[in-house]
């Protein structure tokens, strides 16, 4: 294998590299510089060191947003993987009208966050929503997502799970289908129960796919913005903000670019930390081949 690429190869990858370099990488570096400065629109920046970070870390709203984000991400990703896994196993066990059912399961993938908010708000609209009436009919209190912050975050989680389940499901279903059926036959011959063959065959072989799906979903769930913004707007009284909403408000409502940039870099660092393990493995794989 050559150690230098021909010029034509460099030319072929350059549009992609230029796009992500100019639109994602350089701006991200610039955010780091911004985070060390005090600035606002049309104002000269002045260097303040880590003051913005100190300010953000001293802001109770930041911690509230961080806590909300961690809770929502943990709930969404784990519940989603659990339902996705159950559905993948259910599909693999044979279902009637499989192509049709698969299309139905994928349907939420096509739905925009905006429309999903319309749907779930309507379902849980106090007094008139279908789910509200269902809850009332079995004697449960209504979900007051506009008033009660916990309910608001629960709605956001439900909505996120619904929107992204097709992704987790497909990854796990594809992985389950690639497990050779002889393994299950062998397990059956050895007298393994359904539970044992799940524990000893399915779960270990699905582990890589589960980890990949979890990683992708952690990283993407961490960016959560639209669902919260459109469902609660971060309210009431800033109680349901997540980090992306906090960042947006700091930057575009309070014109505090420095603290917003510091929040941005904390977000980037958290994403990197989440993905560290995966990146290290990928890095080794790639450079082992070169």
């Amino acid at each position, binding site marked *: 294998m050559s*150690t230098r*690429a021909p010029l*034509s*190869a*460099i030319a*072929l990858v350059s*549009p*992609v*590299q230029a*796009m*992500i370099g100019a*639109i*994602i*990488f350089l*701006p991200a570096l610039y955010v780091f510089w911004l985070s060390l400065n005090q600035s606002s629109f049309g104002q000269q920046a002045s260097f303040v060191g880590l003051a913005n970070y100190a300010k953000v870390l001293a802001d109770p709203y930041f911690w509230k947003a961080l806590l909300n984000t961690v809770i929502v991400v943990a709930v969404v990703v784990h519940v989603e993987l659990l339902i996705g896994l159950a559905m993948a196993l259910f599909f693999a066990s044979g*279902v*009637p009208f499989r*192509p049709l059912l698969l299309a*139905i*399961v*994928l*349907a*939420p993938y*096509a*739905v*925009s*966050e*905006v*429309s999903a908010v319309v*749907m779930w708000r*309507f*379902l849980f*609209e106090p007094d*008139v929503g*279908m789910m509200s009436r269902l809850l009332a009919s079995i004697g449960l209190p209504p979900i007051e997502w506009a008033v009660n912050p916990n309910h608001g975050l629960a709605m956001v989680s439900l909505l996120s799970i619904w929107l992204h389940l097709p992704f987790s499901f*497909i*990854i796990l279903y*594809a992985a389950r289908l690639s497990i050779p059926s002889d393994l299950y036959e062998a397990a059956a011959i050895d007298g393994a129960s359904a539970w044992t063959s799940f524990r000893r065959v399915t779960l270990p072989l699905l582990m890589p*796919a589960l980890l*990949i799906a979890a990683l992708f979903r952690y990283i993407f769930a961490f*960016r959560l*913005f*639209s669902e919260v*913004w*459109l469902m609660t707007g971060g309210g009431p009284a800033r109680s349901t903000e997540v980090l992306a909403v906090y*960042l*947006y408000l700091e*930057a575009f409502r309070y014109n505090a*670019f420095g603290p*917003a940039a510091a929040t*941005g870099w904390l*977000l*980037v660092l958290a*994403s*990197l930390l989440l993905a560290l393990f995966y*990146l290290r493995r*990928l*890095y080794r794989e*790639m450079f082992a*081949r070169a």
Partner: protein
Amino acid sequence: MPKLLRHLLKLVGVLAVVAWSLVPIGLIAMSSFKSDRDIFSTTGAFSFAPTLVNYQALWSRWGDFFFGLWNSFLVTVGATILAVGVSLLAGFAYSRFASRGLQASAFFLIFIRLIPPIVITLPLFPVVNWLGLNDTHFILILLYATFFVSLGTVVMRTFIDQIPRELDEAAMMDGASQMQIIARVILPMAAQGMLAVSVFVIVYAWNEFLFAFIFTTTKAKTAPLVISEMIGAVEGVEWGVLFAASTVQLVPVLAFVILMQKHLVAGLTAGAVKG
């Protein structure tokens, strides 16, 4: 387990899956054909006289929405062509050539996916304003395409890896240039991969909210943004019109996803396993 019980459990499972996925979608699609009184009637969801009043109201009072749909369409087409085009070129290079530099750049490609979109809006907002690109289709096309070229390249490489190299070599012997090989040999055989990438970009660009919210105001405003304004504008909620708008926005992309189901699954697995 007795057979009957197993069938029964399976039936319950199927019903649960269908209800979970379709009730929210079906409910707003159906309610968009109801009068305000029927939307909140408690006498059963299916007993109502279908009406087009909501669609008429949408047409006469929310002209903005149809303008938004047109903008969404333009932005989606632009972003898809751009993202698929550059991903094809890069995917070919990563599939056929290898070097330390290329490998490092492939790593960079994946690494970059970790940066949350909201972070880069901070520095981009003033720059975009300064360049006069605020509220243009161009800026949305560029942003949407850029956020999918990483995945696009990985998916294209996976698909191009499956095209035998002998075909390129034969074409090269016949004197074809690199671009001719891509256009005549790779392009027709990588169509599957290109479809897979386009499904991702189309769904994303058609539905995206954050960038549209930050970078557009009037001229390039997309349909999801108009719907969000309707949610905000209607505190005494005009549900019927909102349902009509959501339905109109959803139907084309839903039909597309169902039609392209196979490619979506292939792309998701190729992108996640390798990327």
